[in-house]
């Protein structure tokens, strides 16, 4: 693959290094959130069993969706390596659709909670639930918008030569969002 990604003295393309540094800050952001959640939960003594309050099958389905979207994202990066525009667009579209499916299931979950009178501010359990899943949902939305932007760029004639590395960089972000959910799912829904 030929790209114009600048390679500074670090030997890492600038965009890729920038994304990894951003992800490093994101790791700390979510560590703070999850740390606060764990300390609050441990300090409260009694905590509702997630299975009684939350919809585990819906969350498991969402995990399946997000893991599948990570695969299609990785496949789109592989398509860039092969200079295969058709498959690149196809896999990017699949990734975007799976991201939208994730948000739809999350929206369904939220609507069920709202219907039962559970909102942010109705108790520490629901505060934690809406904060953790809401912040993650916003990250998914950001990933979808980024992938949509990259998909639009693929229609440029010189995309593979000049901007092919954008797919890998946006892919890193997408996989990170997946990794966060890999921990959120058990911590919020299973344990």
């Amino acid at each position, binding site marked *: *693959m*030929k*790209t*114009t*990604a600048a*390679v500074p003295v*670090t*030997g*890492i*393309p600038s965009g*890729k*290094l920038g994304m*990894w*540094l951003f*992800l*490093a800050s994101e*790791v*700390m952001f979510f*560590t*703070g959130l999850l*740390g606060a959640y*764990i*300390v609050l939960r*441990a*300090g409260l*003594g009694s905590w509702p069993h997630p*299975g009684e309050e939350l919809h*585990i099958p819906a969350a*498991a389905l969402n*995990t*399946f969706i997000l*893991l*599948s979207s*990570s*695969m299609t*994202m*990785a*496949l789109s*990066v*592989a398509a860039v*390596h*092969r200079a295969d525009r058709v498959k690149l667009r196809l896999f990017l579209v699949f990734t975007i659709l799976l991201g939208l499916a994730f948000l739809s299931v999350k929206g369904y979950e939220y609507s069920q909670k709202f219907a039962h009178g559970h909102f942010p501010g109705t108790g520490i359990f629901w505060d934690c639930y809406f904060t953790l899943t809401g912040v993650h949902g916003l990250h998914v939305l950001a990933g979808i918008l980024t992938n949509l932007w990259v998909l639009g760029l693929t229609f440029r004639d010189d995309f593979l030569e000049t901007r092919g590395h954008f797919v*890998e960089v946006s*892919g*890193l972000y997408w*996989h*990170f969002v*997946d*990794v966060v959910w*890999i*921990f959120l*799912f*058990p911590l919020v829904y*299973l*344990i």
Partner: protein
Amino acid sequence: MSDPHPAPGYGAYLVIWVWLIALLAGGTFVSYLPIGKTGAVSLILAIALVKTVLVGLFYMHLKAERSVSLWVVVFFPFLLVGAAVLLVLPGIFLFS
């Protein structure tokens, strides 16, 4: 520039996905097993860690990464996460 990473095959990503889904099923199943809270939590988090390693190594291409600079960037957040866990754990035992 020439890409330093060899182009991975489509099939390899599919195999990793199968493993990830199997681990998802395993982790969800464990939460229903009568093995005690500590055992279940340890097992579920261990499975989550394995899934993370698979995504990192294969989907984020860290397995093929040879740049020491990048590994430094990747390593430090996890060092800080480890420090955060060590700070949080005593609080949990203190409260519980």
